[in-house]
């Protein structure tokens, strides 16, 4: 029933009547039902989806449909969607309904995409395995004993298991790219400020981004074209021309590619290293200029990332206090107990860990040693990238040091868990875009992801190299 490779093909099938949109969404709904054990969705909007499909079908007939007509999209359950639940996979928001719609989601709807449901994720997007969810673990459809990655695990799985066409995730330190790599799909983290954060429940405001998961570079590019842009509701969104990402995919350019040595050092799985370097060799053979480069601040990225993101999180999550909305503990004798009990019972373990870390690094007496110093290091990390990008156009790295690990394998060892984001956090620290593209599987049949990084606002280059790899090398 999904015998199209990308949305362009789907739209042609819909327009020619060879594909019925209602059948198409029913097919997805059935897949969701059949693969319930994956636990990819927190909420599925069954009736609504069918209703929208009928309406969009009509628009297609009338030739009034938007760019994304009929694209079936799942959104991560940290994104606001008016009159729909918004839980962030947390007990503290379990019965919360959003009063408004996130800008990125609204832009999808305005182009006639169909929102099929809200996907499971790590609580408040904190995690790398989707094991920190009040809705339970999400399973990797490639191998159900493995984690799908996180925090946007449900979004990655919804695409990988063909439960929808495309999904939206959020990426604060790798939460799109890492699960994309683990599940074998495309996942793009845009430049900070490229896509409005309005309606994205903040984890770490100066790191958070919204981006697509897709089965093709074309669809990722198309969705980016729609959701990008300056938003009056987000002061940190940037006013900058939005290229026609999709149509510019036909361009061809042999970029200068950098291979940062720190991303191929100890700790990287051998099979992943070989797979990435095989692709690099192919590119060399095709005449791409490939250069070894260095990002010397790399060893500080994880520490810097956790100091700054937990600091911001401790403040961002203060609003969930049981006073005005969301979960309130039943037992308390005074205001302080109400806060204490509501937050103790409402938040999960990892969220509490990060709130405590963040509160600590911002405390008087520790601020200079941690927060202020980490801000300085963040600047140095950015400068590292500036320098490297003055020499090369794009960087190629592995997305993750390992393939999808086993469920439960790292859940008791936060440090090991944090290290699974070692190659992805730097892009968030520097505010640059990055993609993970599937380049094959290892000997255990688990997907391997290749990451491409570019300077800020140069997603177009990322897409161009990605589609070249997709069309000419991996297929």
């Amino acid at each position, binding site marked *: 029933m999904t015998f199209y490779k990308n949305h362009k093909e789907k739209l042609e099938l819909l327009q020619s009547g060879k594909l019925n949109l209602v059948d198409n969404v029913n097919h997805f709904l059935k897949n969701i039902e059949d693969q319930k054990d994956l636990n990819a969705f927190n909420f599925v909007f069954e009736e609504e989806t069918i209703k929208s499909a009928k309406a969009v079908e009509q628009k297609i007939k009338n030739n009034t449909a938007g760019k994304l007509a009929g694209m079936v999209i799942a959104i991560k359950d940290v*994104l606001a969607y008016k009159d729909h639940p918004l839980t962030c996979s947390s007990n503290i928001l379990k019965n919360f309904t959003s*009063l408004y719609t996130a800008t990125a989601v609204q832009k999808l709807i305005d182009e006639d995409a169909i929102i099929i449901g809200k996907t499971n994720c790590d609580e408040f997007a904190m995690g790398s395995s989707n094991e920190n969810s009040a809705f339970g673990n999400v399973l990797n459809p490639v191998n159900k004993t493995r984690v799908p990655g996180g925090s946007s695990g449900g979004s990655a799985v919804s695409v990988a298991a063909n439960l929808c066409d495309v999904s939206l995730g959020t990426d604060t330190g790798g939460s799109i790219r890492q699960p994309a790599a683990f599940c074998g799909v495309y996942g793009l983290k845009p430049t900070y400020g490229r896509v409005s954060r309005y309606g994205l*429940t903040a984890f770490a405001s100066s790191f958070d981004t919204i981006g697509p998961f897709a089965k093709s570079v074309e669809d990722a590019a198309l969705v980016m074209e729609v959701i990008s842009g300056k938003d009056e509701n987000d*002061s*940190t969104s940037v006013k900058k021309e939005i290229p026609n990402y999709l149509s510019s995919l036909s361009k061809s350019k042999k970029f200068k590619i950098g291979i940062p040595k720190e991303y191929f050092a100890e700790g990287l799985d051998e099979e992943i290293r070989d797979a990435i370097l095989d692709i690099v060799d192919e590119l060399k053979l095709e005449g791409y200029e490939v250069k070894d480069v260095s990002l010397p601040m790399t060893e500080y990225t994880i520490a810097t990332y956790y100091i700054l993101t937990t600091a911001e999180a*401790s403040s961002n999550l203060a609003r969930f*206090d049981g006073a*005005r909305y969301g979960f309130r503990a039943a037992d308390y004798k005074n205001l302080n107990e109400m806060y204490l009990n509501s937050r103790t019972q409402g938040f999960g373990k990892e969220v509490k860990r990060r709130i405590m870390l963040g509160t600590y690094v*911002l*405390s008087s007496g520790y601020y200079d040693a941690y927060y202020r110093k980490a801000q300085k290091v963040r600047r140095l990390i950015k400068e590292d990238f500036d320098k490297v990008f003055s020499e090369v156009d794009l960087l190629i790295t592995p997305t993750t040091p390992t393939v999808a690990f086993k469920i439960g394998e790292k859940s008791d060892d936060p440090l090991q868990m944090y290290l699974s984001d070692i190659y992805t956090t730097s892009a968030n620290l520097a505010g640059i875009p990055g993609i993970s593209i599937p380049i094959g599987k290892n000997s255990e049949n688990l997907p391997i992801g290749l990451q491409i990084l570019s300077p800020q606002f140069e997603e177009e280059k990322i897409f161009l190299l990605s589609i070249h790899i997709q069309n000419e090398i991996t297929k």
Partner: protein
Amino acid sequence: MNPKYEAVIGLEVHAQLLTESKIFCSCSTKFGNEPNSNTCPVCLGHPGVLPVLNKKVVEFTVLMGLATNCKINQQSIFARKNYFYPDLPKGYQISQYEEPICEHGFIEVNPKNGSSKKIGITRIHMEEDAGKSIHDQSSATLVDVNRCGVPLMEIVSEPDIRTSEEAYLYLNNIKKIVQYLGICDGNMEEGSLRCDANISVRLKGENKFGVKTEIKNMNSFRNVERAIDYEINRQIDLIEEGEVIVQQTLLWDADANEAYPMRSKEEANDYRYFPDPDLLPVIVDDEWKTEISKSLPELPETKYKRFISDFSLPVYDAEILTQTKSLADYYESVISITDDYKTASNWVISEVLAVVNEKKIDISDFPITAVNLGKLINLIKVGTISGKIAKEVFALMLQDNSDPEQIVKDKNLVQISDTSEIESIIQKIIESNQAQVQEYLGGKEKVFGFFVGQVMKETRGKANPKLVNEILRKMLR
């Protein structure tokens, strides 16, 4: 106050800015609406919302900075002040901490005994107001978040203030300035202007500061003076008794006329300030600053000095007339009609303000226009009517702002300044009051007043009093 000691006082003043909408969302700032009706997901602190800065708040604060001789920082940043309270929906207040928008200014005060003095301003910054908690009689606490996100400007003084009088004058100047600028209504009783004081005492000549306390909850100008005096004396008494001052926050209780310590739980806060990642740095470049400064009016201090120098008004008159911009404007409109500056000042200060204060109205709602008051003063000046008649005319004008010249004409109130007419009236009075004439001639000077009274009675007050005096003296010889 014990003369061995001096007080060191710094004030933190919060002024609610008169913008139409809130500082970070488009909700109305209107006061008195249904509780929780001026709200949206942003000021309710719902998940995913983001603040967007209201430019008017920047403009108002820069105006205040310019009016108080501050340096306007090209770049300033917003910070989050983190603490939990039910009327603070986000769990933090967006304020400015490091890098405020205005710094290093001063305000001049003129104490009664002594020369004028500059009180330093450390900083002025922008922030959002919190909501209101209403502690019900029952165990419940109700929260109204209408006020959440109403823009505030905080003005922090240097510890340059030494007496409660200086504190009062400083605060009064702030009130005058914000009202002149039209950026805050300056009403302490309603909370649109709030003041906290940091107070310590030390022996005169000592350079080190003593241990300070902070007093909050002084919701009137008078309370500020009283609370400061109270705290200065309390600290001196403790020191004199050999005790130590404990650094703490006190709440002023106006009814009991004393301050009591806040519960330590309420003040033990580490606010964990850090730059707000949701807002970009505020950039006020020279171009914008120049644009803003164009709307800077003449300030109260300048106006006060000009009233004294240009109109030869006494200090007292100038002080009262410049208390509010609207009153000063009214006065200046009156003297655009008449050049009798002092008479105009007398009329505005005594007659006009009496009505304004009695009716509790603003000068802008005063029924008599400045033009008509000017005309009335001119009628006195040229001798058409006497001051006494003028008050009658004034009373009539109050009813419908009618033209004083018309009233005088219609009611036939023109002053009798015809010498022969007055002489013949006096002649008649002398003839019919021979006994009094004899008393006067016998040296009883007091009786002179009797004759004046008779003339006025005869002319229904219209006789020119100066002429009556002259002619009476002559004819009674």
